[in-house]
């Protein structure tokens, strides 16, 4: 797994490089935006970690240039700018994730692993949560080794929750996911499907945070 790090702060870049190398990545580092663009094209890294405040070329310009050249490599933006417009601009320009400085190394590694998974989720992507295995390709689910039969809508809901394990999704967000599969949704549909999923898998598999939404896994 090869990572291209575009970061102009020498000390930070060195620290990140050490951490990434130790985690088993091959790291190319450049402090220059324009060099970063040519490296991303020539070296074909699997992931790009991009700082926004570069001296020669703005990070967003680097990102646009990459996306303009049809380079689809997942990009994680690393930045000191935390205001909302900057985040929106970054994601709009084609970034896959956004991490603000300062950050814990563990968090950076976790996010990179998530990007890796997303980039690699071609044929046989499996999400494992406890003793539940969700196969996104074959739409099959098993609980403790036993297959669980789900309707298409139930699977859509489960998939939405499984895509971001540990995160809460609101009822509206889940409804949106169902809409995007081209179904029309009645107001209590989500509750009904959640109820069915709990019955078919296990009662503490989906946790409700009252007034906020649902997440996979037990409450704590």
């Amino acid at each position: 797994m090869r990572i291209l790090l575009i970061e102009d702060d020498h000390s930070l870049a060195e620290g990140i490089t050490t951490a990434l190398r130790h985690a088993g990545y091959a790291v190319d580092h450049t402090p220059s935006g324009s060099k970063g663009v040519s490296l991303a094209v020539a070296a074909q890294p699997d992931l790009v970690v991009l700082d926004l405040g570069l001296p020669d070329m703005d990070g967003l310009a680097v990102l646009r240039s990459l996306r303009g050249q049809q380079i689809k490599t997942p990009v994680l933006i690393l930045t000191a700018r935390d205001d909302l417009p900057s985040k929106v601009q970054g994601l709009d320009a084609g970034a896959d994730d956004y991490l603000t400085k300062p950050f814990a190394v563990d968090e950076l590694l976790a996010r990179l692993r998530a990007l890796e998974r997303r980039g690699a989720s071609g044929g046989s992507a499996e999400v494992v949560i406890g003793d539940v295995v969700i196969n996104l390709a074959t739409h099959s689910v098993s609980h403790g080794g036993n297959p669980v039969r789900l309707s298409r809508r139930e699977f859509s809901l489960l998939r939405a929750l499984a895509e971001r394990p540990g995160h809460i999704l609101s009822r509206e967000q889940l409804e949106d996911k169902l809409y995007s599969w081209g179904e029309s949704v009645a107001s209590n549909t989500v509750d009904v499907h959640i109820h069915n999923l709990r019955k078919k898998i296990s009662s503490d598999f989906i946790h409700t945070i009252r007034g906020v939404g649902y997440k996979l896994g037990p409450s704590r």
Partner: protein
Amino acid sequence: MKSIRIFLLIALLSTITLVNFIAALHGYRASMQEAERLFDRQIAATALLLAAIPIDQTAPQVIEENDLQAFQVWSADGQLLMRSDNAPATPIGDAQEGFSEQNFSGFRWRVYSRPSANGRSIRVAERVDLRFRLADEVVLQSVMPILIGLPVAGLLIWLVIGHGLASLKKLADELRHKRAEDLAPLTLAAPPEELLPLVRSTNALLERLQASFDRERRFSADAAHELRTPIAAIQVHADNLARQLQNSAVATPGSLQQLQDSIARMAHLVEQMLNLFRMTPEHYPARFESIDLHRLARDVIAELYPAFARREQEIELLGNTAYIDGDQFALVLLLQNLLNNACKYTPQGGRIAVDVQRQGDAVVLQVQDSGPGIPQEERERVFERFYRVGGDRHESRVPGCGLGLSIVHHIAELHHAQVVLGPSSLGDAQAPGLAVAVHFPVPKSVERGIKYEKVADENLVS
């Protein structure tokens, strides 16, 4: 001066009236002099006519006359030869030729005496009040048009001034409807010459304000960047060091943990100081929009949920959709600070309840926890910068920098909201808990019911 329009109306009408009256007075005097000459000439002509009449009889002849003129004809030896019936039998006027004024028959008269060629004396008199009556008529006729014309002039002046002041009114309207955070230049199309300096200097002022806001924003963005990058580097190196020590046979020294804690504290302090700086109303040009506070609370809780899960705390969101006019970035920061405080000060396995509700003319965001709470006597001071309940070494050993509630306070100020601290309904005798309530004003559009219609529509769709 209350109104330029009324002032101008009164001033102009007074001027017009004054000028007209002076003109009328002058005309009156001139015509009076002219009339006097005419009347005198008329009396003289009558006297000339009487002098030419031959009179023979000795008994005085009495001639019937109108009331306005009288005359006498005296012989050279002082005999009254002829008189009008309204003239007395005694001589009127002087013997010398010329004009004089006299009283007789109950009136004042203008008298003309004239000796004739045969030694007689002719005296013709005319009542003076005739002249006054004419003068009255002249005055009335010159004043009447002014009296009638004045209201018409007033109305016209009122309208013309109104028209002339229209651009001033437009400017005032534009300024009045400008939102506090809107620093765009005034857009008055083709302002009149007199308003141009006002518009120009106002726009220059707005430009300077905008520039200073921009400078502040750039400074805080630059400061954020310059501070966060080295902290990020220190943290990464410390993390690397910790991992290397973990993998080596050497036992991890306690000082490394201290180092990592200190870095976390410093990072937190820098963040909070930046936030405090950015949220001070004079530094922060808020961009207000209609925001569903309930939805925003839900998103922030979802984002922070892992922290509550780590401390095995139970959190719930109550209430329902409530729109306020707010700045999203600032409100997210407010929610994050309140929720982080609740998370930090509520013990492991405790409870936190967030509630967003409309209460009368306010939208109230309330965050309650089952933590130790804040004693009554310290509730005022917690909004002070760097103040921490129980001093720096907090008994809960919770790291913090004492800026969270100051930031909350600034953001509330930015939104004209009030922050109220009280005991929590989740508390008990040992831990009374804390309830922080932020009362936001209900936006005008919601008061008129517009948002409710929108909400109703959304419900229909879903």
